[in-house]
């Protein structure tokens, strides 16, 4: 399948994940205005844009937290609009900006959540492995309450929770946005190395072009519900397709002829 995906460019069923011509209005507000993106298996697609650009709405279409008014979303061979949303979500990892840990559950119980929902065995062992994977000492953290964690630890737990059930697709909504600069860079490194090891397909929403450059294999710049440009980090930096993308690059102080 990854061979097929590699062989064919464009919107085909070979992509691990694709959105085609999505439209969505909330009342009179247009959130998505004909968006198409896709990600190959094992790649990381960053959705970059300002607040209100529609990037989070687009992300939430992939696990049916939002149902588009028009358009098609596929995960592998599955048409998302015909899938049972609850079953679907249990097979897609999700990391929200604020962690979204359930405050009345200890860390281990939080991390076990999806495994338990899927009724899988050995939830605790696998939760502990996931904690180790994200760089937390399971012995030390498993029995803590979320409120006893720092912001960075909370995001690590949220990441462990998303990874514990070993999803093939991981959605991340500004996962490092609320962290201080040092913690953020630690988590970004941890995430990058995890992604290398686990070969998941990721969709990462961020307003930080630096972060996108660092973590993504493809970057889709979203503005007013449309895709301005979708390209690899290098291609984006070296040949911005629109004045808006150029402005974003300049504002982020990313030199136009980037490395390579």
């Amino acid at each position, binding site marked *: 399948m990854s061979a097929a995906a590699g062989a064919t460019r464009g919107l085909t069923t070979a992509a691990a994940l694709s959105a085609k011509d999505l439209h969505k209005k909330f009342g009179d507000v247009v959130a998505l205005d004909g968006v198409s993106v896709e990600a190959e298996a094992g790649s990381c697609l960053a959705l970059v844009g300002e607040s209100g650009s529609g990037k989070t709405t687009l992300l939430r279409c992939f*696990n049916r*937290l939002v149902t588009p008014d028009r358009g098609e979303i596929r995960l592998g061979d599955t048409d998302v609009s015909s899938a049972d949303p*609850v*079953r*679907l*979500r*249990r*097979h897609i990892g*999700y990391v*929200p900006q*604020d*962690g*979204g*840990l*359930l*405050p*009345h*559950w*200890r860390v281990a119980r939080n991390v076990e*959540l*999806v495994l338990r*929902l*899927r009724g899988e065995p050995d939830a605790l062992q696998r939760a502990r492995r996931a904690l180790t994977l994200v760089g937390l000492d399971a012995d030390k953290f498993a029995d803590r*309450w*979320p*409120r006893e964690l720092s912001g960075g630890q909370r995001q690590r737990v*949220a990441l462990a*929770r*998303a990874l514990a059930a070993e999803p093939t697709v991981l959605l991340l909504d500004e996962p490092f946005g609320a962290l201080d600069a040092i913690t953020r860079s630690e988590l970004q490194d941890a995430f990058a190395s995890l992604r290398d090891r686990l070969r998941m397909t990721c969709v990462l929403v961020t307003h930080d072009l630096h972060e996108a450059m660092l973590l993504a294999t493809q970057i889709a710049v979203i503005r007013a519900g449309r895709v301005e440009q979708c390209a690899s980090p290098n291609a984006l930096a070296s040949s911005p397709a629109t004045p808006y993308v150029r402005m974003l690059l300049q504002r982020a102080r990313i030199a136009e002829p980037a490395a390579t």
Partner: protein
Amino acid sequence: MMLAAGVLALVFARAQGGGDRPVVIASKPFAESYILAEMFAQLLEARGVRVDRRPGFGATELAFSALRSDAIDVYPEYTGTGLTAILHEKPAASAAAAFQRVSSEFRSRYGIRWLAPLGFENTYAIAVRRATSDSLGLRSLSELAKASSRLRAGLTPDFIGRPDGLPGIQAAYGIRLADVRALGPAVKYQALAAGQVDVIDGYSTDGLIARYDLVVLADDRHFFPPYQAAAVVSRRLATENPRAIAALGELSGRLDEPTMRALNKRVEVDGVPVAVVARDALRALSLIDVSTQAAGDEPTRGGLVSYLASQRATLARLTARHIELVVLSLLAAILIALPLGLLLERGAHRAEAVIRGVGVLQTLPGIALLAFMIPVLGIGVRPALVALVLYSLYPIVRNTFTGVRDADPAAVSAARALGMTDGQILREVRLPLAAPVIMAGIRTAAVIDVGTATLAAFIGAGGLGEPIVAGLALSDQRMVLSGAIPAALLALLVDGALALVERWTRPGGV
């Protein structure tokens, strides 16, 4: 659901009477009414008729409504009250005309019978302190009219509104008082004695007139029609129990005004228990055997502690009833309000309107609510429970709705994104997170409930309200406290117990 069914079954079982019902005797909440009702009861018992005492009904409307729906069988009433408060007619010209009118109208309209009057006439009495009377030379209402612009009055709300009350004497005598305040029957004598008001209304047979050494002003223009007291009897008793009717009839014409005033004085001034006064009165009239034993033959005025000790069996029974009322109504309120709050949270756009509607229930006056329910639910525990449930709903519905709606939005949204169903989110996330808020609502409802349950005394359901109502009516502070103190302790206890439950339901980590 099992629990709900159990509670409902219990509520209904409590209210089911047996086939052979005793004669239910009620009174209104003032001393004379208590004494007459107790005399009815002892007389019937002496004639071998089983009785059920439900004294202290909160208002004329409650007692009348209960009588009309056969929930009670007999209570003492006054022709004037029947005429003006129930038939809404003008005061009659004479005592005989008043009795004639009520007895024919009540029978044709409601099937209720007025037995022949007890004998004494009772009417409104306008009273002042002896010092006021002496210094201003007040002996009659005509003389009061001249001095009235300097005097402040404390009058029962009833008297202020009735055409045969304040509006009537203003017109008849030209009385123009400097200030008129509405005072309850329980406080107006103290207010007069303490000099906070100068004029009050009372009844000509009140024992307290003697206790506070007051002067009753003569009705020199004969404005107040003299009204007679009589037993009013339900249609059911009148048709089914001629023996009881005959026994009650033995009291007709036997009580003159000096006798009634003396009986009132013994209760209101000397603090002799109602049961003893009633027994002595019936013996004096040779209506019962001298050897007949009555309950409650105890020392009269004494310390609060010795009074509480002497009443401990009664108080234990009343406290148990109070707890029963609070626990059952609170359980039923939780079983209704909790699902209602959750249901409303799902259809949030209509929720505010519904919750406000539930809140309006809270503002209904207790007596009005009870009067409304008597025709449907009768008297006793059942209507009391329904009223208490209605009063308890609001804080629980409101807190359930708000607590579940506002439960940690980030956690709820993450739970949904990771594949929890709506039901799982409700059970495992929102309800546990809302638990402290919901419990706070239940605690509020419970404490209010303990206080409100004193209302039950107004419709013969017992509880700690009974000594409070009776004590206020009989001017017996110890009796009031014997209900009020346990009620206050119960409120603290309930609040403390629920605080423990609240701590237990509070999820860890929050």
